[in-house]
C-alpha cells in the first residue's frame, strides 16, 4: 500500500477524533452525556477491528487487499485507544469490572501495537537474508540440511579416513543442526548465531587436512544457511505468534464490552 494512502488514513482518523473530542467537550459543557455516543462508537470500532479477523477467513471475497485491511486495522486500533480515553475520561476507571475491561483493552492495544511493529519491521529483515522460506516448511528444510550435513560428514570420513570432522559434528554441530537455535538472539536482531558458527568451525579448521577442509567448507555453508533459516523461524514465529495473545484478548474485550453495553442500557439509560 502506498505511503500516501496510509498517511491519508491516519490524517482522516486524527481529524475524526479531533472532531469527536470537540463534540464531546461541547456536549459536556451543555451538561449532556457524551459517553453514550463515544461508548457506542467505541464498541462499533472494536467490532470493526474484529472484522479484520473475519476478512482473513474470507479471502475469496472482493473486500479489499489484506494490506489495506491491516493498515485500517492499525489506524482503527489507535483510534480506539484514543476513543477509549475519551469515553472513560481517565486512564484508569473506578469499577472493578471496568478496570478488568481496561486491563484487557490495554493488553489488546499493547499486543496490537507490538504486532504491528513486528509486522512492519521483520519482513524487511527477512528479505535482507536473501532467502525465502515458507514457515510451515522450516522443519522439512532443517531436516534436509541435517541430512545433508550428516552425509557430508560421512563422506568426509569415507574419503579421508579421519574422524576429526565427524567427532566435531557429533559433539558440537549436531546440537546446532538438530532444531532452530538462538531464537531470542535472532528475534532481537543479534548475531550470536553467526559468532557461534564462526567460533565452532574455526576451532576445528586448523585440525583438518586439505581433503577434510573441503568437506568442512561445505558443512560451514550448510551452517550459514541454517542460520538464515533460524532467523526466518524466529522472525516468522513472532509474526505468527503475537496474534495468539492479541486475538483471544480482543475476543474477551469484545465480550466484556458487550456486557458493559447491556448493563449501561439497563442501569443508566
Amino acid at each position, binding site marked *: 500500500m502506498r505511503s500516501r494512502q496510509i498517511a491519508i488514513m491516519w490524517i482522516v482518523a486524527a481529524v475524526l477524533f479531533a472532531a469527536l473530542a470537540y463534540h464531546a467537550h461541547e456536549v459536556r459543557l451543555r451538561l449532556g452525556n457524551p459517553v453514550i455516543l463515544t461508548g457506542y462508537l467505541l464498541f462499533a470500532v472494536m467490532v470493526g477491528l474484529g472484522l479484520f479477523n473475519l476478512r482473513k477467513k474470507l479471502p475469496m471475497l472482493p473486500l479489499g487487499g489484506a494490506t489495506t485491511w491491516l493498515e485500517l486495522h492499525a489506524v482503527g486500533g489507535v483510534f480506539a485507544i484514543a476513543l477509549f480515553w475519551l469515553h472513560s475520561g481517565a486512564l484508569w476507571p473506578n469499577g472493578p*469490572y471496568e478496570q478488568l475491561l481496561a486491563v484487557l483493552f490495554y493488553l489488546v492495544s499493547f499486543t496490537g501495537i507490538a504486532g504491528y511493529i513486528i509486522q512492519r519491521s521483520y519482513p524487511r529483515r527477512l528479505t535482507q537474508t536473501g532467502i525465502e522460506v515458507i514457515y510451515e516448511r522450516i522443519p522439512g528444510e532443517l531436516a534436509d540440511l541435517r541430512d545433508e550435513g550428516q552425509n557430508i560428514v560421512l563422506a568426509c570420513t569415507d574419503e579421508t579416513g579421519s574422524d576429526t570432522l565427524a567427532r566435531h559434528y557429533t559433539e558440537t554441530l549436531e546440537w546446532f543442526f538438530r532444531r532452530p537455535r538462538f531464537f531470542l538472539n535472532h528475534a532481537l536482531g543479534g548475531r550470536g548465531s553467526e559468532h557461534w558458527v564462526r567460533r565452532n568451525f574455526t576451532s576445528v579448521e586448523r585440525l583438518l587436512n586439505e581433503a577434510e577442509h573441503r568437506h568442512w567448507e561445505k558443512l560451514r555453508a550448510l551452517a550459514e544457511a541454517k542460520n538464515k533459516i533460524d532467523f526466518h523461524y524466529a522472525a516468522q514465529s513472532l509474526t505468527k505468534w503475537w496474534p495468539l495473545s492479541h486475538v483471544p484478548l480482543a475476543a474477551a474485550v469484545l465480550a466484556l464490552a458487550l456486557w458493559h453495553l447491556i*448493563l449501561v442500557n439497563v*442501569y443508566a439509560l
Partner: protein
Amino acid sequence: MIDPERFRHDRSAYERPTFPYRCGRAALWGKPCARGPNIDGTCGGTTECAPFFKDDRYECRRPRTAGGPCAEGPLPDGTCSQQQPPCVPRPTLRAYRGRLTLLSVALTVALIAAFLGLPPDGAGTLTSVNPGPLSGAHANFTKDRGCVACHEAHDQGVRGWLKAAFSADDLDQQCVTCHVFGGPANLAHNATFPGRADLAETTCIMCHTEHKGEDADISMMSAAQCNSCHKLKAPRFASGHPDFGPRFPYQERTAIHFDHTRHFNIHFEDPRYVDRAPQGCVSCHEVETAEREVRPAGFEKTCAACHAKAIPRKELVVLNLPEFTENLIDREDVLEACGPTLEALDSLRDRIAAMAAGEAVEEEELEDYESVSWDSPTAIGAYLLGIDGDDPEAYQQPMQELVLAMATSGAGPLAQVIAERSDPAAPNALLAGLSPETAKQAACAWAANLEYEAPAEAEFGGWYGDGTEIRYRPGGHADPVVKAWLEFAIAAAAGAEDEEDRSRAEAMRNQLLSVSDGPGGCIKCHAVSAPSPTDGQNAAADVMLNIEWTRPGATDRFYTRFAHKPHITLLGPGAGCRACHKLDETADYGKSFKTWDASAFVSNFKAIGIATCTACHAKGQVREDCQLCHLYHLEPAFKKGML
C-alpha cells in the same frame, strides 16, 4: 530455499496452514511426510500414498514431491507398500488461536456470571454491575437496599432488565425521594427564568455522576459548564466575572440605624463613654457563630450600656383629659360611680357642722365650669374615638362619655373602643398591665374635672395616671406594649376607612413613629420600611409599613453563598474585618433612615469590589471556581424522612 524452482507446483507441496493439525514429525523437527495429518487429528502418513484402483489393478499415487511412484508399488490388497510408523499430529497455530479465543470468551462469560450472583458485599463488589464505589453519603444510605435504591431494574430479573434496556431510565425519580429544592427539580436552577423558555429540562445525572469513588465530589462543575448557559461568560473569577456593583454588599438598608462612623469617631472617643466603648468589631459582632453574616450580638450586649436608660424616658400617652367647654357629665352619675370626692366630703362635713351649730346653710352654688385641662386629645384618643382633636365642641361629648364610662367600669370601655377599631384581641396586647383601678381613678378625677393624683409614679415601668393623662412607661428594650401600639398605629393607617379617619390614623402613626418623640425611642434605631422601594415617605397613607424589629437573614440571596468564618480564621478576627469592610467617613448614613424606602441606602462602608476578593481568590492561590460562591440549586434540602 533460494532456488525459486523449489516452489514449483510439482516440486513443492501445497501447505495448508488453515488446517487444524500439522505433521507430528515436523513438530519434532523431522522431515514431515507428504500426506500430512488427517482432518480428525490422526496421522495420515502411515503410508506414503493411497493407491488408486484403475483397470483391475492398483496404481501407486505417491506425489512427485515425495519422489513419485515407488518401485515396489501397491500391495495386492491395495494398500501402500511404503509403510512407516505413525506420528502424533499437533494442532496448528491457527487451531491454538481458535481454542485460546474460545477459552478466553468462555472465561469471561463465566467470570461475569460467577460474580453477578454474589451479594453486594465482599466478593460481590467485583460484580460487573458495580461500576465503582459510590460517594460517601450515597454509599451510606444505600447500604441496606443496595443497587435497587437507585436502579429499579436491578432485582427485576431478565424480564425487568429487558424492559429497562429498551426504555428510558428515570433516575431522577429516585433522587427526589430524598432531595428537595425550592422549585421544580427538572428545571435549570430549579426555577423559571423570564425570557428563557428555551431552556431545556434538566436531569440530575447531567451534573452528578455517581460511582466515581468514595471521595469523589459529584457536584463539581467547571466554569466552562456554567458559561455554556450563561450569556455573561466568566472563564475565571479573576477575569470575566462581573463586578459586584457600586453598593455591594450594602444594597439593602440595615435594620438598625447604627452609624458606625459617628460611633467610632465621635461617641467612642467621647471621654464620657470611652470606658463603655467596644474594643473592635468583634466586641459587637459574634464571630463564634459567623456564617454568611457576622451578626451583632443583641441589644443587651451591644447597646444597653449607653442606650438602655433612654428607653423608659420615652413614655406613651394613650389617653388624656382634653379641654372641654362645658361639663356634660352629670354629677350624680359621677357620685354614683366614684363616690364623693374629698373636696365634696369636706364641704358636706362643713355643712353638717354648720347645721348642727344652728347656722344657716345656703344652697351650694354651682361654679362656672372651667376645664382643668387645656390640652387637645392625644392622637391615639382622637383616632380611637374618631373625633376632631382641634374642635372641643365636637369631641367633648364622646370624650366625656368615655371618661364617665371609665369612671364607672375602669379600663373596659377603653378596651372596647380599641376592639371596635381593631380586633377583639388587640386590647390584650395594647393595654397589657393596665390596672382597671388606675383607669377608674383617673377617669373619676377627670369626671370631677380634677387632675388625677397618682399614689406613686411607675418607677419600674408600666401604666400610671398622671394629672390629665394615662401614660405608659416602657420597661426596657423590646417592650411588648409599646411594640403593640406601634404596630397598631401602622395597621390603623393602612386600614383607614375614609379620609378623615386616615388623617387621624396618620397623625397617630406619625406621632408613635416619631424618631424624637416616639414611645421607647424605638424608631430612633429600628428602621421603618415601606414594602417596596417606590413607596417612600410620601407614599399613600394606606401603605403597610414594616418596623424592622429583627435583622433580616440573608437567605433571600438565591444561588450565592459566602462564609465569613474561613475569612475570619485566616485574616484574624480583629483588623481582618477591616481588610474588606472599610469605613466610608464621607457617607451620609443617617439620611437613609429619613425615608421609608429601604433601597435608598448609603452605607457606612465603602462598597466591596471584586478586586478585594481576587487579591486572594485567583489562579494559583485560593479556589476561584464558580461553585465556591454560587449554588446551582435553589434551596437544596433533604426530605424530612431522611433526617
